[in-house]
């Protein structure tokens, strides 16, 4: 266990380094922020000056050296656009994203696992068909459709919740509801499929022979056996949310990391891109370690 964590920490750190190196060089192949930052009619002089100020005129390898040097001093550089430390900008946004991801994934997991298991209990039954149908439609519908229709209906027509923004708990309702739908559909299907197999195994019969209630047969005996693919997919969906839900953030004016990342990419604000990747990557790496630990906890036959 300790050995596993140690090994994982090392290999994750190496991955992170590789990731940063790759992003550093690759992102710089996509162009120069100068043209995007300065007005279109800016003189060559102003451009050269801008490059010099932001160190963009130096050879790439020197820039990289400086970057590494700064990072070692815990300085992630300044955002060109925002003229602020990039890490500060990213953490501000990540705070929102993290909350959104945690709340959403918790709700999704609970709902999808419960309903998916119930659907699997009576395959082809009414509940199964209804759950499958609606979850699939939700999962396949374009998210902005759902978002806009929800705003028009719940905010404009009914006036129950604010259209967008942050501030009160009510502001969270729609973004979470819309974010909920796709992972819910996907996870429900994975749970359902995995549970169909688990529910037909012999050990569930043993449970039945013991007089265990159907509820426990499903959620205690079969579910744990069916959980491996489920937590994997939950992890994948959570990672997607941690990387930022761009559409939702855009529509609901949610100051998360997804929109920040997109803007920074489009503006070639490299320090912010790198800081954002670093922060989300660490979050995702930690999550994956937890998931791998969960495998071993869920299934004692898996040992690392």
């Amino acid at each position, binding site marked *: 266990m300790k050995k596993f964590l140690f090994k994982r920490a090392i290999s994750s750190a190496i991955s992170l380094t590789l990731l940063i190196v790759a992003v550093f060089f690759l992102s710089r192949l996509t162009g120069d922020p100068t*043209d995007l930052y300065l*007005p279109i009619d800016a003189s060559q002089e102003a451009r050269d000056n801008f490059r010099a100020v932001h160190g963009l005129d130096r050879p790439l390898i020197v820039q990289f050296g400086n970057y590494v040097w700064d990072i070692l001093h815990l300085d992630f550089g300044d955002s060109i656009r925002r003229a602020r430390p990039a890490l500060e900008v990213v953490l501000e946004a990540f705070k929102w994203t993290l909350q959104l991801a945690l709340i959403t994934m918790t709700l999704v997991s609970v709902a999808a696992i419960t309903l998916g298991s119930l659907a699997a209990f009576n395959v082809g039954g009414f509940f199964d068909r209804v759950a499958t149908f609606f979850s699939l439609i939700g999962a396949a519908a374009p998210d902005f459709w759902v978002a806009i229709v929800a*705003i028009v209906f719940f*905010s*404009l027509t009914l006036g129950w919740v604010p259209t967008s923004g*942050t501030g009160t708990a009510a502001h969270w309702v729609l973004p979470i509801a819309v974010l909920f739908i796709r992972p819910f559909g996907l996870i429900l299907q994975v749970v359902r499929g995995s549970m169909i197999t688990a529910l037909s195994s012999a050990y569930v019969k043993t449970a039945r022979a013991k007089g265990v209630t159907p509820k426990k047969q499903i959620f205690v005996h079969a579910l744990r056996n069916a959980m491996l693919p489920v937590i994997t997919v939950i992890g994948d969906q959570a990672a997607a949310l941690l990387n930022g839900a761009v559409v939702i953030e855009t*529509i609901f*004016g949610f100051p998360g990391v997804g929109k920040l990342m997109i803007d920074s990419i489009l503006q*070639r604000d490299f320090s912010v891109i790198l800081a954002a990747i670093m922060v989300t990557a660490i979050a995702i790496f930690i999550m994956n370690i937890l998931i791998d630990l969960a495998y071993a906890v869920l299934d004692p036959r898996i040992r690392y």
Partner: protein
Amino acid sequence: QENDVVIALNEELETVEPCMASQSNIGRVILQNISETLTELNTDDGSLMPRLAESWEDQGEGTWRFNLRQGVVFSDGSSFDSADVAHSITRTLSPDLTCEIGAKFFGGMTLTATPVDDNTIEITSDPAQPILPLLMSTLTIVPSETAMEFTREPVGTGPYEMTEWNVGQDIILTRRDDYWGEQPEVAKATYLFRTDDAVRAAMVPAGEADIVPLISQIDATNEATDFAYPNSETTYLRVDSNIAPLDDIRIRQALNMAVDRAAFLGTLVPEAATLATHMTVPTALGADVDLGVPEYNLEEAQRLVEEARADGVPVDTEILLVGRLGNFPNVTEVMEALQQMLSETGLNIKLEMVEVAEWIKYYSKPFAAGDQPALVAAMHDNNRGDPVFSMYFKYACDGLQSGICDEELDGLIADATAQTGDERGDAWRAVFQKAHDLYADVFLFHMVGFSRVSERLDFTPSIATNSELQLSQIKIK
């Protein structure tokens, strides 16, 4: 609160630095609300009004003297004097700061500010600028203590000060008691940021916002709240006149005739937009409303192309039609329609929609299209009243975005730039005329924007709303 307004902007403010106020999203919050300028452009008639400078006179040799308003205090309590102006100029033009205002309006010139006394200052430009007072309408004044780095707490002489900035969420401006001018009605303004057009528009009926400066044409359906106003943007296709077959004037004429401009109005482009004949807005100096819009005539266009073909012009060369995503509402559809219209002349037009970073490479020299003839769709914004901000870049041989190189045109531009007074207008008119005769571009529209204003307010957006939103002009019903 009765006297509070909520304004939903389409983009988050990345900084609140006054010297970046020429960026429209920053300008809408800061310009004339927090930071004021020496002069102010009256967008209705193109005249120049006093603001922090009460008057100004040309001293000759590129030097202008400005007499500053007295009794003005900054929101941090310090009083306004000529040292502040001098510092603001240095700061805005400083190479260390790369301010947008400096790069955009003061590129290629050196300004020297010499305070004469506390309330008088002389500003000299090299080379001489006949329109220096107009340029000063862009330069935001900050106190002389302001550090030489981007500030996060803007201080200005305007009627409001920034009291809160929750990054990503909102910015709050509160009315100052010690403003030198008339007390505005609005006491507090909250700025929210919503990128999505439909959501932004919905915020007014939902009661979450009072003013939404930019809504999409499609959402502008409520006459009581939605206002259309010219937004000083002009759309056009820049033609690479140096590359065959576009170097043939018949081809350029054919392109101009092939566009059924009227068909766009009220469909993809708002009804209220007007057909463009030249690069600047109709209220700018020298604007010639009498220039004719090339008439839509497909047969004639086809004939011209055939004629050129007969003369050995390589009309079958693939011509790139480059559009920029998100440039203006419906841009993709407009470009698709243009591609079809232009193709009907018999030319070989290929549409390419690109992201802004790539588009700039097509638009500014050296052109990314290289040897391939290209038509680059662009939208030009000149709300400063004088064509000088446009014409050199767009038409001179060395102009950064110029697709044409014509000696006579170059001469006309140089002449107009140096003129002052009434002759200046005439000189510009000649430039417009020449560009028109050369079919240097395919002009499309002077665009309009839409804003939604809650019925509770008495406020009519105007052309100025594009770059600033003066809270003091908002009245409460």
